[in-house]
């Protein structure tokens, strides 16, 4: 986990040092007790005298450690984001034009809406590749029901309902049949959901939405596209859910060690169903935005979205084996890929070429944690831990 201990802040000055009264028990022999890759509080002299057990002190707060903080994955993403922008603005004079950027975001942001629910699913080690199909089905049903006379607000509610049902079906199948891989189950429903959409609408389009509906996709709020404002609000909500609630913590537990989580009383089935249901709801929200921008819906809408969404999540530092990653990383990664697409599009790079570039970026990003682990293992193989090897170990943590 990347969670470095939070800075206790300047209000707790006493915590940095264990208190000068009993320095003895505080030094548990820095070298032999534990491979202390993080003992930032002990600038201790090597007087490794064994302290009596009963008096042992354990700290419950730790000073801010800049080394750990700045070695986080997210900083690399920030650098990458800046690099992308720097290169792009050199390549094209129109790049740093506010209205151009906002237009690009307007086009791109419906994918961004999907990244946090997808992140939660990947956190527990699963994946959902049926999102784009869920978008198509809920969008098509919204269009068809509106065309059949259902008032638009109700049609939108119907879309949300359809999304929730699609997601819940995924979740229920996975909860019921634990041995099935999420990849296979959602691959099947990916075909089914879009298939149903095609059965309903064949290759026609449904549209004729009321005028106000187009404002959802094209309108602005506080000078920003509505969809971007929604994305910011969504980010805030998911930071809260993923990093500050018991529910979020249980996702990390399931992703790290599902067996231990079960023994700790976490109900993985309930979590799974809820995650996929949330994913479905957000897929239908994205479908509403997309339909509003396009002015119509068709069964082929949003094709290939799942790949971009998963790419953003993985680039953001969420391990596909589960249990690792932070919202902020995914947030930045979404903008990296977004700006990359926008910039390359401006200088008329064909979109298949852009896809190739994004693929390369993803492979590089995915291999960096492995490189770090390799370095850490090398460092451990060195018999006597020297200060320099300690740095490498904490790099691996960061």
């Amino acid at each position, binding site marked *: *986990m990347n969670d470095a201990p939070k800075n206790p802040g300047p209000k707790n000055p006493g915590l940095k040092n264990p208190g000068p009264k009993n320095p003895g028990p505080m030094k*548990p022999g820095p070298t032999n007790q534990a491979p202390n890759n993080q003992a930032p509080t002990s600038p201790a002299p090597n007087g490794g005298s064994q302290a009596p057990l009963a008096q042992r002190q354990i700290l419950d707060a730790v000073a801010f450690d800049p080394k750990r903080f700045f070695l986080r994955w997210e900083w690399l993403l920030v650098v990458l984001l800046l690099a992308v922008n720097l290169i792009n603005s050199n390549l094209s004079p129109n790049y740093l034009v506010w209205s151009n950027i906002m237009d690009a975001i307007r086009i791109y942001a419906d994918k961004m809406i999907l990244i946090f629910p997808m992140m939660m699913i990947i956190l527990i080690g699963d994946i959902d590749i049926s999102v784009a199909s869920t978008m198509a089905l809920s969008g098509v049903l919204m269009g068809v029901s509106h065309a059949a006379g259902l008032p638009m607000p109700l049609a939108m509610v119907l879309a949300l309902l359809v999304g929730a049902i699609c997601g819940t079906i995924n979740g229920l199948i996975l909860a019921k049949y634990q041995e099935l891989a999420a990849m296979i189950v959602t691959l099947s429903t990916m075909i089914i959901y879009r298939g149903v959409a095609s059965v309903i609408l064949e290759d026609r389009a449904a549209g004729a939405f009321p005028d106000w509906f187009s404002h959802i996709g094209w309108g602005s709020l506080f000078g920003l596209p509505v969809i971007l404002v929604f994305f910011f609000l969504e980010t805030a909500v998911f930071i809260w859910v993923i990093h500050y609630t018991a529910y979020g913590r249980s996702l990390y537990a399931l992703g790290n060690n599902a067996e231990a989580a079960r023994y700790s009383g976490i109900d993985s089935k309930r979590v799974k169903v809820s995650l996929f249901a949330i994913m479905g709801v957000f897929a239908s929200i994205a479908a509403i935005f997309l339909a509003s921008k396009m002015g119509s819906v068709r069964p082929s809408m949003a094709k290939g979205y799942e790949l971009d969404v998963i790419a953003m999540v993985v680039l953001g530092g969420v391990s596909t084996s589960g249990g690792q990653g932070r919202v902020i990383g995914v947030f930045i990664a979404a903008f990296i890929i977004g700006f990359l697409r926008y910039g390359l599009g401006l200088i008329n790079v064909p979109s298949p070429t852009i896809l190739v570039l994004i693929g390369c970026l993803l492979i590089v990003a995915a291999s960096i944690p492995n490189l770090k682990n390799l370095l850490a293992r090398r460092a451990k193989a060195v018999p006597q831990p020297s200060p320099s090897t300690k740095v490498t170990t904490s790099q691996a943590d960061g």
Partner: protein
Amino acid sequence: MDAPVLEMMNVTKTFPGVKALDNVQFRLDHGQIHAIMGENGAGKSTFIKIITGVHAADSGQMLLNGQVVHFKNPNDAQKASIAAIYQHSTSYPHLSVAENIFIGHEQVSKFTGMIDWKAMYRRAEKLLAELDSHLNPRRPVGSLTVAERQIVEVAKAISTDSQIVIMDEPTASLSSRECEKLYQISEKLRDKGTSIIFISHRFEDMYRLADKVTVFRDGKYIGTWEVAAISEPDLIKAMVGREIERVYPQKSNQIGQELLRVEGLSKLGFFKKVNFSLRKGEILGFSGLVGSGRTDLMQCLAGVARADQGQVFLEGRKVSPKSCRQALKEGIGLLPEDRQGQGLILEWEIYKNVTLSELKKYQNKTVLNEKKERATAKKLGQRVSLKAPTVMDKVSSLSGGNQQKVVFCKLLNSELKVLILDEPTKGVDVGAKSQIYEIINDLAAQGYGVIFVSSDMPELLGVSDRIMAMHEGVITGEFLASEVTQEKLLLAIMNLG
């Protein structure tokens, strides 16, 4: 007589925190069946793994036909014609009998470089016929009975003309008729000059089959005897041995009224009609060999698995937890046998592990109060004298004993009445063991009912108030710890008493 087939001299192997083998000797002659006996954790499996190249010894020598050898991996051992048949068969259920026999050394046609299926099936049939078996080599192994699979494993071992065949508890899941067949096969192999190392808990296996027997205890070599020259009581004494110096706490627990009552609990294939009761403040030991169903019983009580039949009463009220969550809510907590796989999230900080099973308690409306989590972890950690610099340290950086203390903190964080401790001292060094005994004793003194499962008899006798013996899923004895000896207990768990 020339050099022995295999000779092990002064072999030592240490795992983090435990000395698994300490200066062990062993000598295996041509055409000999040599039994190795010892309690759980005596070091038999480690010893076998060194012979088969799975582990490397820290020090000591291994001589094969008088030549010093060093195995770096299992392939080296295979090349040296050493084959092993493991307790849990390592077969591939979806592949055919022939494929399983020849896995890794398939019969390949010289001309095409492709697998010569006809020749392979023919040879498989021949090998099986040598073992008086008429299994169809085309059948998938998954469709065979356990005994038939065992025969396939033997065929696999002899397909490479092994000079040494190691059998690790081969009879554990066989009926007596199937055992007899395995005995005959083993004798046939011996008569052809193959040497066999035979590991078993069953005395009948050893007396029926082995020429010599070597006993290990606590990772140490105790002795080697001619089977005909040693009696069963003497052998048991050798296996149990003198008590090694270990400190058990002065008992301070007060036994109160009945807390937990189990009536006729059964789970097909695991345990049958189990009855027992646990009182408040009591430490109830559970003794049994591997495969006795102890762990499965405990998992059913803690909601991990579900029993088929029977009832459990907690403070007179019927409970039937369907999940760990419900069991915890009722007040039954389990310290699982596999600390690293089931008890902890190793890559997590200590405090997050401690609070994981009771996260709701740390929610301030909806937001987790990490400060409170850390303060609790600190408080509980000090209560069990956890040795760690901070509660933000990762559990993976702690020693085995301290990791176990984190699991104890986790249990203490819940409001429990019954604590089920499954092998709490497994993989923990001696010093930390005494501390864990002290923790257990303290908990009982505070009024918890404690179920203490252990394979280590001295500690079971030293810590428990009362001990249940289990053998193949059935309770075969109930003793007061103050009145029972290790010998008596061993007889009960082997169902010889």
